């Protein structure tokens, strides 16, 4: 327990010192009980700042250090590593006087509060005991959730490094949104042409176990040792036996909209979402099948020469232990029925950007013809509306990031498909901040003669066989009215947050996962061992999704390539006066409390250090290491 404490107050340039009177803080703290030295410095985290701490530990013979600076999530590790050269890392604590004080308060009150925060940290430090990390083994395997381009990239990177990957995809095939796209900006390569080789590489990789048509239903455990339960839905078709001949499909009497085609093309109840699907197999969609039990139709099985169809398949629960998890669950589009001003998107001739992607695709519902869905005739005049639901306080306030670019691409491809057609784009601003992006947009504007109108669309309504789009051109101040055949909404992008509760990660208003730090830890979740890739973290284009996926893979590899993992020793311990009532055993979410010899005992490897047991113990016989009752009570005292 530290007796000679040194306090180091950081200016953080003007971030702290601009608000908090650091000299007064030092003066006040210098005389505080247990403190033998206090000073301030411009940037404590810098090399000279760290050297200053080292020098003073030696000179003043310090046995404990307080760094009053930013949030511990930024630099606790930095300063503990400095201190570890002299003594146990738990003899170093941080006082957060930046995020919790100088950035949010002003004047003398900020200084007063900073002093309280530092005193509370000192009181905690005084009772800290030296702790050694607990080492736990690491499961050398990674789970990737989501088989879009981000998940595929992450899985391939990890597998190529020689580690086992389990790739779970909810849909019948991997490929995700990218597989639905026609061509990709700004180079206009065909999306499937560049994606399918990667999909095939996944299916052939000996280190990748692909579980498509499967869902992660439960995740327990902790970093290095997650236990995952995966539900494998029955396809009623043996993936290995299916030859994709298509005989089953020909005889299936049920016709439903194909989700892959955004519902714009029919499929049968037994189907393959698109020809290049991986795994390359048909799937019997039991929700739409006439029925297996009792068997009503049975035609597909009769038609299948390969004997791949098995009506007795059942759902399977697969359990896997993994060391790291990469979440790449992708995005959805904003619900167009919420857009009152655009007629709730109910009209047949008002379509979404993804529907337009399918329309542009050579193998899509219209075989690449740009038509009015209402009458099947070629669309001679088309309007693209950007920021449909994005950058709008009534809907989603954020920028969906990729719509400017794909709308430019849409307009260009439209002009290539319908050279005599007229294309209009309504936009708020053009955001083309990527490699080659600005050049691409200006090419579309100039060479392709697409009419860009700066302004939001106020109203859309049908008049005969036309859709009338009304808005104001804010550059000229004039009203604009376009009588269009087809309207394409660049809808806001939403994160898919269904995994959030299972991985216990916060999501923001758009359903995007919260990363550990917005700049410096953009792929890490707050929970250790969980990483993000792609649009589940924020809207992004393909190159960024791929880069983030490789970043996640590198992080996951850094973890699973270790033999042992350091675990925080801030766990519970039971006092010898325990009466053995068992309340702690009932409240512990990890099963870390057991009864031994009539008393409770904490299993170190299982305890996660939440402290619920300590708070629940009716006889006050459980304490949390370095978060002991008396430490917290002392902190309360100095705060008040």
């Amino acid at each position, binding site marked *: 327990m530290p007796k000679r404490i040194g306090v180091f107050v950081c200016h953080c340039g003007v971030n702290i010192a601009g608000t908090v009177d650091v000299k007064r803080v030092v003066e006040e703290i210098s005389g505080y009980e247990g403190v033998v030295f206090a000073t301030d410095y411009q940037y404590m985290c810098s090399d000279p700042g760290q050297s200053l701490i080292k020098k003073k530990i030696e000179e003043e013979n310090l046995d404990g250090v307080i760094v009053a600076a930013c*949030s*511990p*999530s930024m630099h606790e590790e930095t300063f503990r590593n400095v201190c570890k050269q002299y003594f146990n890392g738990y003899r170093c604590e941080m006082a*957060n006087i*930046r*995020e*919790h*004080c100088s*950035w*949010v*308060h*002003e004047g003398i*009150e*900020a200084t*007063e*509060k900073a002093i*309280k*925060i530092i005193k*509370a940290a000192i009181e905690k430090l005084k009772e800290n005991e030296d702790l050694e990390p607990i080492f736990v083994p690491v499961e050398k395997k990674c789970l990737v959730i989501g088989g879009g381009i981000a998940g595929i990239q992450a899985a391939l990177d990890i597998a190529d490094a020689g580690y086992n990957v389990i790739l779970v995809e909810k849909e019948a095939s991997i490929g995700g949104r990218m597989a639905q796209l026609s061509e990709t900006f700004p180079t206009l390569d065909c999306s499937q042409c560049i994606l399918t080789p990667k999909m095939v590489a996944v299916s052939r990789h000996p280190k990748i176990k692909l579980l498509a048509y499967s869902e992660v239903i439960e995740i327990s455990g902790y970093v290095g040792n997650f236990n995952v339960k995966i539900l494998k839905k029955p396809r009623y078709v043996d993936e290995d036996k299916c030859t994709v001949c298509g005989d089953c499909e020909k005889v299936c009497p049920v016709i439903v909209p194909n989700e892959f085609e955004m519902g714009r093309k029919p499929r049968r109840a037994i189907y393959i979402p698109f020809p290049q699907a991986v795994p390359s197999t048909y799937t019997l969609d039991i929700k739409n099948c006439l029925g297996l039990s009792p068997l009503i139709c049975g035609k597909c099985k009769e038609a299948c020469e390969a004997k791949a169809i098995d009506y007795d398949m059942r759902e399977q629960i697969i359990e896997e232990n993994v060391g790291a998890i990469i979440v790449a669950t992708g995005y959805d589009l904003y619900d167009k029925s919420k857009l009152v001003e655009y007629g709730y998107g109910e009209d047949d001739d008002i379509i979404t950007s993804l529907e337009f992607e399918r329309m542009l695709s050579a193998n899509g519902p219209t075989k690449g013809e740009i038509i009015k869905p209402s009458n099947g005739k070629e669309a001679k005049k088309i309007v693209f509306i950007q920021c449909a639901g994005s950058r709008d306080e009534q809907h989603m306030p954020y920028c969906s990031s990729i719509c400017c670019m794909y709308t430019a691409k849409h307009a260009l491809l439209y002009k290539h498909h319908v050279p005599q057609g007229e294309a209009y784009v309504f936009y708020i601003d053009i955001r083309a901040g990527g490699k080659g992006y600005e050049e691409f947009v200006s090419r579309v504007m100039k060479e392709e003669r697409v009419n860009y109108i700066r302004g939001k669309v106020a109203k859309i309504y049908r008049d005969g066989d036309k859709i009338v789009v009304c808005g104001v051109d804010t550059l000229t101040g004039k009203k604009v009215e376009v009588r269009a055949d087809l309207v394409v909404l660049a809808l806001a992008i939403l994160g898919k947050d269904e995994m*959030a*509760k299972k991985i*216990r*990660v*916060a*999501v*923001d*208003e758009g359903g995007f996962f*919260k990363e550990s730090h*917005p700049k410096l830890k953009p792929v890490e979740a*707050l*929970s250790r061992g969980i990483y993000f890739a792609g649009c589940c973290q924020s809207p992004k284009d393909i190159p960024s999704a791929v880069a983030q996926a490789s970043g996640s893979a590198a992080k996951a590899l850094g973890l699973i390539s270790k033999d042992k993992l350091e675990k925080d020793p*801030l766990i519970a311990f039971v006092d010898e006066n325990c009466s053995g009532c068992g309340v702690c055993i009932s*409240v512990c*979410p*990890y099963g870390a409390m057991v009864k031994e010899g009539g008393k409770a005992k904490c299993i170190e490897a299982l305890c*996660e*250090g*939440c*402290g*619920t047991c*300590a*708070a*629940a113990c009716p006889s*006050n016989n459980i304490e*949390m290491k370095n*978060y002991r*009752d008396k430490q*917290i*009570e002392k*902190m*309360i*005292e100095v*705060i*008040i």
Partner: protein
Amino acid sequence: MNFEPKIVAFLCNWCSYAGADLAGVSRFKYPPNVVPIKVMCSGRVDAEFIIDAFRKGADGVLIGGCHPGDCHYVEGNYKARRRVEMMKRLLEEMGINPKRLRIEWISATEGKKFASVVEEFVEEIRRLGPVKK
């Protein structure tokens, strides 16, 4: 003299403490009356800490946890919520207005919410005045 409430905030490490960090990063100003103590989980907040804070002169106690279902430790926040309900009844018995104890779910993405909760709570305690001894 103006009454300046003294408020202790127990913030869970994973959501509310990070939410307070985000309030800072985003420069959302709020009154300085609340001083945080980080706990790993809102479930760690012992009933004794609450009593102790009021005994030592706190005018209010704020507990910040993860949203229901988001708890890093599965269900610590549910236990905290149950405990707070019990404590509110107990505080009333002790002659302390139960409104002085508040539990809020503030996620790591809700910097704005952290600032507004603090602002609102400080206002409420200001209206209630100091705890009568």
